[in-house]
């Protein structure tokens, strides 16, 4: 409440810059995904596309979080809360790793044997 009008002008400017950055990043994601000249490596989605696509998404998400959601100047309590949230969500992602150890997937390993045959045709 004590903040002056000048202060709000600065806020607005930073919001507009973030808006521009988000739009630019969205176009970048699209370009990586569909336009061949920007496509990294061989055609189609490749690991490089995944890493860059998700890195751009993370960058956009952190812009939204830091600037729009004011996490760049927030109280300590919220950071503590979010650290736990972050750790738990990492745990959620890691859950899928356990699936690799599931014996139910073993039956699919037999399919590996068909791989050699594929190369012959083309």
């Amino acid at each position, binding site marked *: 409440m004590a903040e002056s009008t000048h202060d709000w002008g600065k806020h607005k400017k930073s919001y*507009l810059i973030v808006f521009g950055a988000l739009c630019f990043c969205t176009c970048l994601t699209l370009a990586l995904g569909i336009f061949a000249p920007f496509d990294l490596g061989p055609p189609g989605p490749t690991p490089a596309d995944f890493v860059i696509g998700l890195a751009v998404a993370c960058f956009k998400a952190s812009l939204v979080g830091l600037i729009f959601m004011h996490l760049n100047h927030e109280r300590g309590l919220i950071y503590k809360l979010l650290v736990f949230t972050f750790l738990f969500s990492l745990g959620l992602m890691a859950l899928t790793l356990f699936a690799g150890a599931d014996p139910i997937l073993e039956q699919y390993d037999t399919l590996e044997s068909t791989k050699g045959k594929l190369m012959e045709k083309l």
Partner: protein
Amino acid sequence: MEIPHEVTPRRDTGLYNAKLGVWLFLASEVMLFGGLFSAYIFLRVGIQDGVDNPWPWGLNVHKDFVWLGFINTLVLIASSVGVVFAWVALKERNWKLYQVYMYAVIGCAVIFMCLKGIEYNSKLNHHFGIKLKDNSVMEGELVNKTDRIRFEGATASVSLQGAVPVFIKSIPKGEFPIFKVTEGPGSEEGVEIHSDSELKAWFHKERRAISAKLTEERKRYRAELASGVANPTPVSVSSSAKLTSSEPFVLNANPRKVVLHSDSVVNFKDGSKVEGKLISDDVEFIVHEVDLQLVLPQKQRESIVWDVINDEGAKQQFFEQQDAEYRHLREYYEPRGEVIPEKMLRGHILNLHDVHLGGHHGDDHGDDHHDAVHKSEPKPSAEGAHEEAAHEHEDDHSISVPRDQIKFMGNHGPRYGNYYAIYFTMTALHGLHVIGGALVLLFFTVFGKKLYLKNPEHLANRIEVGGLFWHFVDLIWIFLFPLMYLL
């Protein structure tokens, strides 16, 4: 009563209460969506090439959806900026400007949901796929709901227990015949039924009568037991009825409700049965693309999809495109001294292509169904040109797919594959969040004036909290867009 810390921060937390509350809520939301993103990664990474249904990246229709998703991303980003500007307008005590920004935000939410609706509609009502017995897939459009089994019914046998017989739903609206009850458990034989509502009423009445009879029978049985009869007559109440139509009636049976059908009878899953004559159970289909990602490369030329399509030109077109793509891949990998990876050989780039029916070889239609596959040399072009004129709208060419060749068919709804299941789960949940958030913001836009006049800072705090939720919704979409459309 004054609620403390709505405007001023609490000393111990340093926050006003609503802000702490919404952050706790958002933390729980992160868990909710985190679990679903985890499921997405599991499905995406776990695809067995050539075994599981592939992600739809190569489909032409999907490429249109990418643009819709892209526009939606921009719309949501714009709305997020709108919310922070509305908040700043409140801080500057500018009510008019605040309202303008808020209505813009709600407008963005409406645009977002409309585009989403267009995409859902197109997936659910326009695009259809048929997977044949050898896992080859045809993508395109269904003609006139011909996934239904078209049947001409004469009599229907129903059980008067359980739910209303499902065959009623297979009779087209306005074509309900006059049924006569020819066999039934009660005294109602000879009753005439003129509409589905009458049939339902009759069914419910009969069902009540049967259940009453059953109660009586049980009473009798218990009484006989109690009076010491050695072998009491078992409880038995007939609950089947037969309806005969005066004239043959049309039945378009949903194959998902049918257990079995033959030339003379359709058996529904609930036990009801319609006898009559099969008109046709072929699926009329307009093919746009052929997808052989699930067929081994060495078996692709003999795939049954080419028998079904029965168009040598289309087949040739497919393999020409495949060869061209294969050359591109070799040009990429060979100079690097690498072999083309397995993923590429089984992926959509090589194995999913457009086909145009009735192109060069329209004259193959109808004749020697099985020989068509082996004729690979092109016909003289003069003959082809004549045929081309006859089939100017080649996209409208529909083919008949025999039902016994079909392994699975459906619209691009959640049943169509893992991608569609997770796509609909996540985008629908996200859509609900958009609707919820927009309603909250709309409330503060329309009814916020009183609070604004009383304590503008209080309203600003509410908008900040509502805005936090809205930014979170935007944030989820930022991840959904690349995952659901591009990667």
